[in-house]
């Protein structure tokens, strides 16, 4: 059990490092199509993290919506705008180094703040399941839920209007 636990811990860290690595590749690779693939891996990795955190439902949602829907959209867009995927075209702009410095400053700041922080944590993870989540969504969260559904509808209609190239 102990070994299993520590194995899980080690693999958790491994996953985290992996996600970070893939994410960095996602934002730095010259080929946008590759970036999309790396993004898919990142999102999958995040789903794994959800598993580790015992949020199985969310992990499912993550895979379904992100990897399924959003990735499709992204790749679709990349295709539509073609040529753009040409790896010879530089994919990052001229503010790489300033941005890096800025990000590092943020990182230092955030991490130092996090390290100063202590949390009121439980001994074991609190878990929930799809049923309770579903009940919550249709109960306590019904209002935001309805709002989001409306927004989704209207936004999609709007997106279609904007994207359609009729005259």
């Amino acid at each position: 059990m102990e070994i299993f636990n520590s194995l899980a811990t080690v693999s958790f860290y491994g996953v985290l490092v992996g996600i970070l690595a893939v994410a960095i590749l996602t934002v730095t690779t010259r080929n946008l199509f590759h970036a999309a693939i790396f993004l898919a891996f990142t999102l999958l990795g995040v789903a794994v993290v959800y598993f580790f955190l015992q949020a199985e439902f969310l992990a499912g949602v993550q895979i379904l919506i992100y990897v399924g829907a959003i990735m499709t959209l992204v790749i679709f867009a990349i295709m539509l705008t073609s040529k753009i995927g040409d790896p010879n075209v530089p994919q990052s702009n001229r503010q790489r180094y300033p941005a890096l410095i800025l990000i590092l400053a943020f990182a230092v700041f955030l991490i130092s703040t996090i390290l100063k922080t202590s949390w009121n944590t439980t001994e074991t993870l609190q878990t929930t399941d799809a049923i309770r989540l579903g009940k919550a969504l249709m109960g306590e969260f019904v209002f935001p839920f309805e709002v989001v559904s409306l927004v989704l509808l209207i936004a999609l209609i709007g997106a279609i209007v904007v994207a359609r190239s009729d005259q």
Partner: protein
Amino acid sequence: MVTYPVFIPLIPLASFAIIVFFGKWLKEKSAWVAILASAASCVLSLRAAWTVAQGGSFHQSFNWLMINNIPLEFGIAIDPLSAVMLFVVTFIGTLIVIYSVGYMHEDPRYARFFAYLSLFLFSMLGLVLSSTLVQIYLFWELVGLCSYFLIGFWFEKKSAAEAGRKAFITNRIGDIGFFLGIVTFFYATGTVRFADIRPELIHAHAGSAVLTASALLLFCGAVGKSAQFPLHVWLPDAMEGPTPVSALIHAATMVAAGIYLVARLFPLFHAFPDVSQVIAIIGTVTALMAAFFALTQMDIKKVLAYSTISQLGYMTAALGVGGMTAGTFHLMTHAFFKALLFLGAGSVIHGSGVQDMNEMGGLRKTMPITFWTFVMATVAIAGIPPFAGFWSKDEILVRAFESGHRIIFWALVLTALMTSFYMFRLLFLTFFGKTRGHLHPHESPLVMTLPLIILAFGSALIGLPGSPWMHHWFQNFLAAGHPEEIGMNSFVVTISIATSVAGFLTAFALYVLKPELPKRFAKKYWVLYEASKNKLWIDEFYQATVIGWFKAVSKNAFVFDAEVIDRTVNEVGLKTISVSRIKNWIDQYIVDGLVNLTGWTVRKISAVLRLIQTGYIHNYLFVLLLGLLVIVFAVFNI
């Protein structure tokens, strides 16, 4: 209750108003309005003077202003001093108005001239009748204004306009002193009423430094108006005006206002020997200096102008050495013979058409009336007894002698000598010998010669009331019960007569017997000659210093305004351009200001700041995060 003396100044004022508003219709008749008005006030003045001579007095006033709860009155007061002035002003004034009918006829602004004369009479009479210092200041400025108008009467002539302005500004300088003198006097004593200015009041403040300053400042006014050194420069230029004006304003009456003021405030000056001494010195210097200038002038009016300055200096000196009655006496006599001299000169100019004595000569035959009246006046001013000038001049010399100021006395004697000389020089150059220019002289009309004749009698006789022959009636009248001791000093009388005669003889020798001599003298003593001719370069000196300085300050102030206050750093680039466009120099500078500087800076900042908005979204995001970082950092650290 309004008493009749109130109308003395008001009648000329009414005349002024009538001529101004109806001059278009009255045309030539305006002169008669003016003559009637001045004659009327002359009659009233005589009546008032008679009443005063009987021991009466007038005082009438109302509250004009409140200064810190102290009422400032406005009114008329007639005492012996003002009665004398009233007489002089209205009498001579009337004659000159009549004379002007002849002198000014054919002038396009004929009516306006009489309007000015009326206005002047009003102002001068108001001045004389004033019951407070503030009021006198008020009319003081008004007469100055009339003088300005009348000097510049022929304003198309640039020199006339310039002379008017010069007179006004020079007077203003003195007047500011006068004004400050009034203010200081008011705060030192709490009153500006002449009725209050008695020796007792002054004694209460004896030794007061403020009052000393006040007295000096008040005297500044007199210096300006009576053309005393160093503010005498305006009077010769004032001869640009029509000659009757020179006679009335710049010889007989207005310029004497300064003397009148000093006489008015005599108790004040008398109480401060230091001030009196200053007055005496200034008077003497003026008298001597102006007489010296008069020696070489060739313009007939300029000679008379310097003579006027010199005589005014005489009076000032008299007052300075304590001869209040002597000064006033000379004022009166001088008014007569100097008016006569000017009118005579006017007649000469009118008859001959020139003013330069180089072109005159021999006018004796063609202008007999003018000649004889002129002789009377010359004799009077030269101090030949028993003509008017002798008595008054003699009394002044006595005063100076008795006061113990030896230098002043001898200076005045020297002045008398020079006076006699330059007056006879004038007489000989004008009327004797042969006519040097191409002239067609003719005698003036009756309307001009009649006043000459009247004044000639005046010049001869007016000295008598002050002479020992009439027991110094005039002096007693003036001192009103406090008769000054009048001494006859035979030494002084001898000197006086001697100088007069010496002057006559020298002039006769130089200009009648040996007319070629003056030129030789001029060459030999060229330093003196040039100094006299150029009036010691005082005008030039002023031009170079005071006026130059004034203009420079003014110009610089404007440049300062445009450059520093209004502009500052603004547009160094434009400056180089503006050098090339010197014409628009000032415009360029005004364009920009401190506000513009700010505006310019803001606009430049704006132009730079907008560049942050590059249009690139990644830059925007960068700003967002940078800003957030700054905010986080700031908030964590407060």
